[in-house]
């Protein structure tokens, strides 16, 4: 099977978070609680057991005159902080329990019932 990956073109992303909502709806996972972070518009903050997609808001001091698409300065970047389903997935190789597997569609999947939370995949 050809090596595939999951790429998000951040230069086109407007940070609407519709993907976050759609992902939760599709996978039928619950909310993560209603906590305001005070960190830009990012209240999702990180991936987790019930958050498979995260749009990270990278906010830097903007300068009047140039918007985010300007070559001069990126000021508010909406970065896709999610699994890329890498062809050579380090997390999958590192997983001691076999919880992380490659599916028949080529995607990388975490089987929650086998995960013991060791965190090797993150490292």
């Amino acid at each position, binding site marked *: 099977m050809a090596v595939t990956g999951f790429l998000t073109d951040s230069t*086109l992303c*407007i*940070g*609407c*978070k*519709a993907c*976050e*909502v759609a992902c*939760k*709806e599709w996978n039928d996972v*619950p*909310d*993560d*609680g*209603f*906590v*305001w972070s*005070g960190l*830009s*518009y990012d*209240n*999702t903050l990180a991936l987790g057991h019930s958050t498979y997609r995260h749009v990270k808001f990278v*906010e830097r*001091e*903007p300068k*009047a*005159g*140039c*918007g*985010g*698409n*300007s070559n001069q300065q990126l*000021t*508010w*970047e*909406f970065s896709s902080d999610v699994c890329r389903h890498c062809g050579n997935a380090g997390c999958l190789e590192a997983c001691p329990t076999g919880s992380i597997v490659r599916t028949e569609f080529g995607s990388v999947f975490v089987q929650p019932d086998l995960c013991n939370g060791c965190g090797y995949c993150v490292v």
Partner: protein
Amino acid sequence: MGSSMAENHPVGFQWVIEAREKNGATIIHVDPRFNRTSAMSDYWLPLRAGSDIVFLGAMINFTLSNERYFRDYVIPYTNAATILREDFRDTEDLGGLFSGWDAEKKQYDFETWLYEGATPSKHPGMDEKRGGHGKDRGGEAQELHEPHRDETLQHPRCVFQVLKRHFARYTPEMVEQSCGIAKERFLEVAEIFTNASGREKTGAICYAVGWTQHSSGVQIIRAAAILQLLLGNIGRPGGGIMALRGHASIQGSTDIPTLYDILPGYLPMPAHDPEGDGSLKEWIETHKSPKGWWFNIDKYIVSLLKAYYGDAATKANDFGFSWLPRLTGDHSHFGYWLDMADGKLEGLFVMGQNPAVGAPNARLERKALSKLKWLVVRDLVEIETATFWLDSPEIANGELRTEEIDTEVFLFPAASHVEKAGTFTNTQRLLQWREQAIEPPGYARSELHFMYHLGRMLKEKATDAPRDAGLRALTWDYPTHGPIDEPDPEAVLREIHGSSDTGPIKHFGELKNDGSTACGCWIYSGVFDGENKANGRSARGKYGHGWGYAWPMDRRILYNRASAAPDGTPWSERKKLVWWDETKEEWAGDDVADFTKAKRPDAKGDAGKGGDEALPGDAPFIMHPDGVGWLFVPSGLKDGPLPAHYEPLESNLVNDLYPDQLANPAADRKERPDNAYANSPDVRFPYILTTYRLTEHHTSGAMSRTLAHLAELQPELFAELSPELASEVGVVNGDCIVVATARGEIEARALVTGRMPSLDVQGRRVHQVGLPYHWGGRGLVTGDVVNDLVAISEEPNVRIMESKALTCSVRKSEPLVTALE
């Protein structure tokens, strides 16, 4: 400008991104905040909220003084050459007022604004009872005449010269002084935007309520219209002014209005006139235009009355015209809500809105509800408006006591958009049909179901009394089906499309004034020509014909005759849209021509015939009696024929442009003890406040704060303020702060960010505070009601409040000291 399109219209914004990616379009965002739209733009210019006309005026001045206007377009297609009356006086001459100001009545007499030689006629557009939606039809302004023109544009009283003098004081230096935008930045952007003009290029302007919700909102949009007309950017591909709509079918709800001052298809609502006879003839004489498209207004009103009253509408009874309600005063949302607060209103239906959270001076609006005898609320959830008597802030603070409220509240569950069929009309006037996906749960019903069965039951209760005559005559025979007797929405669309005594009609061109045709909304006529065209799903060509139906006549770009030169050839190969086909002797092209198909470009107008035939073949703006775009508006506006900058109703600054005239003189402040204003200036409220929406929520939050996956994304009310302001008031990011105005105060979390910059304006540092207004007392996430801070005020033309520029104070919230436990 006046919009965060990426934030609030993310679906439509894909086309902006596509223009950037595929065509290399430059995106310029002018907004007090750096938001999602700024992040996607090439340029972001932060401006002081409420200074939009200074910025746009300077763009116009730049265009005129640097010869950037599209001369070949401007002379034939606008009223630049038209000569004005000798007694017209501009704001230049009268210290910020136009001629005709009546200080006692606080309104203008606009006779001096007419073209030279025009005879003034009855102008109900200025009548206090009528709002701006039912504005001047063109015919109200003046009797038929040929405007005096000077095509060299040299005559000192021609519109072009008046425009030049009027905008001369709107300089780049003034932009720096008043908007807080550095002169160099302004010039850079002015250069880029005015370059998007001429035969080969066009530029578009997108705006939303960031322009509308000001005390001079209509004039801000007028300024954009002047700029776009000068640059030749109207009626051409890639040009235009896009009014971004805040909800799925807001365009539809003005076309077939939920507004008090118009009937379907922008026909003015009749008003009670003690001096008139109230006849249909009188109404037609008042509103019919001798030249241009509104010549046909009699056909449209008679056909509408036939759709309403069917066989009961006859020539002998004026087609039932007397059965239509009459305007007797300001029945806009604010007009009737203040009446309600004063105990003058008995009952109210609230559908598709949540004024207890979403309307200005929400505290006044909530308290007013307690004066009603009955209140009907239809919504997806039990919204704050339905529970004002139970858990509103006024119940909590003791201002209202549940046991003392007599209002009987009826809550009806509503079907959502997937649970009913019908159309949406979007911002480009496109009607799109949607199928019903599932049955509504429980007792939830569609609006159509509710209104139809309510009407049916009311008709059953109609008596023989004369006041019930209209109700008895009303045609109300839509077929129903299924277990809940759901009316057929296609039957309604067919009625809107229209019919004649002899069978189906193709479009509004076939409507007549003799009672032989019926049509529920003339501009939509054509949508059901043989089939439901709103349901079309096979798009073809560049402009998507075959997908949905764009009123009128499936024209995708309005006034597209202007996409061709006066001789009928496209301005350029790159920007061609419609053109005259000499062999077929008709207008051809990629769009349906917004023009009489067989009218030659060199046709002379036949004034003897009137209407469209009176206009020549090179007059693209067919709704106007002179067939041209109006740089100068001779009639129809209540606060001036040209935009002039006035400070917001609350401002700590001076009016740099007209020092003697601070605020828009024609705006209605509706000032009263429960709708108080800050002074201008006012040391108590030193900062500028502006309100807006976030992508994650929808307006009052009823549809988003109740859904976990949306509520978690923006769970709490916050106020955006600059690091500078934060340090001035001694707060850090995340602190609880109190934001106060003359109406009240609310608590929010401080989001300290450089995206909300402080600006240098009039030689001092000006701080702005931004508040999204989505929170209320119910739902999964709750918060204070930001609209408690906003005053009820009325822009003079369309009676909208000023929620985008007010004054406020900010302080750190002191934790409540509670008794020892």
